[in-house]
């Protein structure tokens, strides 16, 4: 398996060290477990956005749609197995339903499974509609879909409308909920990372890179571009749905504008993180999200009220003055570090022939 993932002994050691740090983190900082779990969700955001934005050149501004969709699907499924959803949401938290641990975990598993499937179905249907749009039209179209989803959920009373849903209470002890969902978020992100690591070594990545470089030529060469685009978006939707389900349960209360479909916060964070790290690379999104997360923690704490201005300026500076991102910059300055990835003649030509 390690061969298929392209892990050398040295990089394997590095991965294991990072894994150990991830496992140890909630024990070292027990008061910040939820914040650390948010970090893993951020990494997952950036990784899933990069499938489309970086590798395929389709810049979606509305991927947050799948996150919120997963969140709501999971919540409804969890409640529906023991209670009437409409009554539960109409009471807006007044009804306290005691979920037995068995019911809770059953509901959670069912919810997460559905939260992975339903967004994929949406991605397939939406890709049929939206992928005719190219370039900026696609970005604006996806942004529109996400805003529309937020507005519609906001006025749909069955799922609580703007009042939101109070999620089922976790059956474990006080510190257990945070640790449980920290582990779940971390597992989902690692799963996503390994899957993408494998995926980017298959023909699939060549195909989506071809779509990025020149879609018309790729199509002319017999590539079934529509199908590749659909699959790529579905992969994003799959992992984002799971992340949404876990995130909703971790926060304990969900509502459409700020938690489920926050187009202007999380939805933009994904893009900003990926661009900061360098799009179109596997580690760019991860490095970008780590740095962004650290920056966000600092600005959110010390620049009260100014944090979104800082975010806006960060995006502008990043896009205008630092387009290639951290990994892209390193690749230009230290091509040797990326030598193992530049083994094929095509890659070598690309590196020596300057920027393509």
């Amino acid at each position: 398996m390690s061969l298929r993932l392209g892990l050398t002994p040295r990089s394997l050691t590095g991965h294991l060290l990072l894994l150990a740090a991830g496992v140890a983190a909630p024990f070292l900082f027990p008061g910040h477990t939820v914040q650390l779990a948010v970090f893993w969700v951020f990494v997952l955001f950036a990784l899933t956005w990069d499938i489309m934005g970086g590798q395929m050149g389709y810049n979606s501004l509305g991927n947050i749609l799948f996150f919120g969709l997963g969140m709501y699907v999971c919540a409804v499924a969890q409640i529906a197995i023991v209670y009437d959803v409409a009554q539960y949401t109409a009471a807006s938290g007044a009804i306290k339903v005691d979920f037995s641990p068995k019911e809770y975990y059953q509901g959670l598993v069912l919810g997460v499974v559905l939260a992975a499937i339903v967004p994929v179905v949406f991605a397939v249907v939406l890709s049929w509609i939206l992928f005719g749009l190219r370039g900026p039209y696609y970005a604006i179209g996806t942004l529109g879909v996400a805003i529309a989803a937020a507005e519609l959920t906001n006025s749909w009373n069955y799922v609580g409308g703007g009042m939101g849903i109070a999620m089922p209470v976790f059956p474990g002890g006080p510190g257990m909920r945070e640790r449980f969902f920290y582990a779940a978020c971390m597992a989902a992100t690692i799963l996503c990372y390994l899957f993408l690591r494998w995926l980017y070594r298959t023909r699939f990545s060549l195909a989506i890179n071809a779509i990025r470089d020149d879609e018309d030529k790729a199509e002319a060469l017999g590539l079934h571009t529509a199908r590749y685009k659909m699959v790529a978006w579905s992969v994003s939707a799959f992992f984002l749905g799971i992340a949404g389900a876990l995130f909703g349960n971790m926060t304990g209360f969900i509502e459409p504008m700020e938690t489920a479909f926050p187009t202007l916060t999380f939805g933009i964070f994904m893009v900003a993180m990926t661009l900061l790290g360098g799009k179109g690379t596997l580690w760019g999104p991860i490095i970008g999200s780590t740095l962004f997360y650290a920056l966000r923690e600092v600005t959110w704490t010390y620049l009260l009220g100014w944090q979104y201005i800082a975010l806006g300026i960060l995006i502008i500076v990043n896009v205008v003055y630092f387009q290639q991102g951290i990994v892209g910059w390193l690749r230009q300055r230290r091509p040797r570090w990326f030598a193992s990835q530049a083994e094929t003649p095509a890659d070598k030509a690309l590196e020596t022939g300057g920027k393509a």
Partner: protein
Amino acid sequence: MWENLQILGLAPVFNVQLWLNGVTVAAVFCLVAYGLALVWGVTSVKNLAQGDLVMMGGYGAWEFAKHGVHPVLALIPVSAIMFVFGWIIYKLIIRRVIQLDLFTSLLATFGLAITIQQSLNLAFGPDVRTVQSGFGSLELFDGMVEITQIKLIAFGLCVLLAIAMVLFLKKSRMGQAIRATAQDPRAARVLGVNTDLVYAMTFSINAAICGAAGVLIAMIWVIQPFYGIAYSVRAFVIVTAAGLGNLPGVIVTALGLGVLEQYSGFVLGAQFQQATIVGLLLAILIWRQMALLRQRKTLQ
């Protein structure tokens, strides 16, 4: 919903009211969309901060009104300030993204939109505001239909501004240079047009138009720091539906959208107004795609 539809059927004057409201507001959006189309056509930058520039203009009028300047008179200083602001933004940001791919410009202006709306929020607070112009209102059809005079004045000012804009583009040297650059920047450069200056002028003029539109919006409607993005989406709906460089199209679409919005707000309820706009944008984009698909089929 059905009751509201019945009301429209039973009392036809309500239709007149909706039309009047729709048309006057739409006239202002017409200006905003025209500015967007101008920048889009000349520099190929899709300015997502368009609505936030409008909001800036609105708050400018609010600030002037606080110091005792009548908002209609504030139109000129606000436009001038916004022109300078547009120039600075061009030099700092837009100039560097014109050469890059389209998504970069979209994202850069999106970052600009976030910065502007949050700065406005810090400076003026999140309250929904409107600037009092002190004009009375007219009553038509025995008081069944009411329209404020300021809406009519704003409509007139919009028409004047639009005419001035068209004359500027058609007659002045700068206007000719702008149109030449829109047609072929390279050829224009060869023939001695300073395209960098043209781009700067275009973006600054757009900012000034947005500022003027913001002053009018603040008087006839409401301003709030976070409404900018909704205004940008509206402008995009109009421009994508009408197509670039199609001024009559922009006018007709803007008016149609304004009236449609009033109807949907009346029939479905105000909370669906934004969803209607976004739904319409998607419908237009998908319709365009269908047209593209037909074209591709023919090619095959």
